[in-house]
């Protein structure tokens, strides 16, 4: 295993979620699930993060914010859409202001369905994301050499 997969730092952004998924994200950090066992840290800072973890759907208001955060993350990076709203817009899909899931604005690497999503699924998603991270790193390195 490479270093990247041992130390995935996450930035968590709450789009327009109902906070259900966010509570589950925090639950994953708490003693019961303790994702720090796998080196996962919630950084709250895009410049330090490897994984962008989004909950809630994308709307007109938060679209530039999500883009800014994504652009301010150093390569290699992956995007997790956590919860049904983030994957497709969920029950808010038809709202006048909602664009839909995260994939309307960003290339999503892992989709995690659930309403609200369970901490086990989040951990599972991070582990999947870490694998993609390693692949991207290889690609990034190859691109850097070329």
């Amino acid at each position, binding site marked *: 295993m490479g270093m990247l997969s041992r130390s995935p730092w996450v930035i968590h*952004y709450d789009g327009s979620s109902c906070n259900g998924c966010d509570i589950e994200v925090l639950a994953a950090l708490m003693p019961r699930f303790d994702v720090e066992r796998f080196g996962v840290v919630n950084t709250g800072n*895009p410049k330090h993060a490897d994984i962008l973890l989004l909950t809630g759907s994308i709307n007109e208001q938060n679209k*530039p*914010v999500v883009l*800014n955060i994504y*652009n*301010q993350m*150093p390569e290699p990076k992956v995007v997790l859409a956590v919860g049904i709203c983030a994957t497709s817009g969920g029950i808010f899909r038809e709202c006048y202001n909602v664009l839909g899931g995260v994939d309307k604005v960003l290339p999503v690497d892992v989709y995690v369905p659930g309403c609200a999503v369970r901490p086990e699924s989040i951990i599972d998603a991070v582990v999947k994301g870490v694998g993609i991270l390693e692949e991207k790193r290889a690609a990034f390195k190859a691109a850097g050499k070329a």
Partner: protein
Amino acid sequence: MASALLNFLILFPLAVALVIVLVRKGSLFPLVIYPASAVLIGASCLLVGLSAGGKPILIPAHFGWVEPVMLAVEGVVSAYLLFLALKQRDWAVSALVVIQSILLFGFHFGTGHSAHAGANLFFDLFSVVMGLIVGIVGTLIAVFSVGYMRDLHKHSGDHAGHAIPDNRPVFFGIIFLFLSAMFGVCFSNNLLWLFFFWEITTVCSFLMIRYKMDDISVKNAFWALRWNLLGGLAFLLGIIYLYHTQHTIELDKLLSLPKALVMLPLALISFAGLTKSAQLPFSSWLVGAMVAPTPVSALLHSSTMVKAGVYIVLRFAASLEGTLLGMVIALVGLVTFLIGSFICISQNDAKKVLAYSTIANLGLIILCAGIGTYEAVWAGILLIVFHAVSKGLLFLCVGSIEHKLGSRQIEDMSGLVIRLPRLAFMLEIGIAGMFLAPFGMLISKWAVLRAIVDYNPLFAIFLIYGSAATLFFWVKWLGKIINVEKPYTNIETGISRSQWIPMGALTGLTLLICALFAPFAVVFIDPYIVALYGHSMSLGAGNMAIMTIMLSMIGFFPLAFLNYGRGVKVSPPYLAGANVGELGQQFRDSMGGVKAMHMKNFYMENYFSEARLMRLGVLVTVVFLIAMIAIGGM
């Protein structure tokens, strides 16, 4: 040779001053001032060749005509000051002038008529070091002022408000007169001569502070005059008392007499030194003096004139060692250092920061003098040298920056490295010189700390707190210069060569004496200390090696800029994802409007308020001063 050189150094600037005042033609000033400055710097460098040692070398030459001339000048100046003071209705100054004149003339025509000094002039290594500072740093500042004053008068016409009357002939005349007087202070052995030159510097300072002639300048000029005259009065009383009890008016005799016999004169003249070097409780005059044009602040109020005050007290160091008087003087210096450093934290005006930091550093030197051990004097002389060079540089930089930015607020200096890159670089060197290891001031602060711990560790506690505060205000200024809030363009044009050359030279000097301070100390300071105490101070060869390594490491820092932007990707700052605009340096607020980001420093006015700290400092030091005179009298 020595006698001729000293006479030349005192008389030549005087002649230049006369020429300038007589010529009165703006276009001719550079033609007079530049060559004269070159000559003066050259002549000062010759001082090194005097083979001065630690022991004073007296020059027994007699000039019968000098004393009447001095007396006449003193009479005329007193009359002029009295006239101005009465016109201003400043009764304190008027009274001081009158009392001083009565005492001086009474002394001359009364008992003191028979007072003759065996040697009027002298020199030793300490005077030579002072002479070098005056000759090199002082003259460089004089050169700077040519371009600066041209700018000042050009800009003052733009403003609708008070236009500054263009009185440049008098300005430059006073600058050179002042240089002459400063050489006089450094090399006089006859205390009456010393007093004469001392008072001339006071008058120069007064005339320079009121140069702009607006209400505030005139008011502050009189305020400065008042305290300096009070010091002058104490000086004169000290001389008269000394003559009456010990029948001498010579500096070397005063220093070689048994301590116990000369306590009162020492106390009185040290009192004069404290007023001149703007120690608490007199510090407010130096802060007020910042209304003067910046070269004046650099020359008189940081690099040279205020150094005359610490020079005289430091001369007495060996006599003060281990006495109660010395302890009280040390306490005054210590309190001044502490309060001055604290006040700097809450100041945004760059010149005020420099003023208070000058007061604080002079306090440190006074502290060394009061302690009076060989380590302390060694550190004190080093402090004088490093401070004169770095602070002179800082003042000049701030002066030029003020003209380019139209402000001297530190908060307005954001992005200075982009707007005024070369000035910012020099300012950085100056600031680093003031507090950062392994630059000058820190070396001396290190020596001071060692000296003070051996003397009385309780004093060290306050020194340590003061130096922690020093760190804070310098770093935040430095940070403001390199911090970039928004896109800036380079506006560094139109700064004359007369400004660049002195600033460049002082930057070079700051770096040079840092690199070469060890040999400098061996050649210029150690023999003086050995002559006084029989042994000298050393920081240890291993430590010197480490300092040198550190300095060369810092020397590599500019080289790191070869890597500028290599291997990194530029991205806008993190603004919680709300960046807008091409460079992302603005953000969208909660109401959808676009805002620019601003970054402001901490000033902590509630905790380090100028007014409150000053009041406290004045209260404490007044008690010390009363104790000081009382101890001297006992």
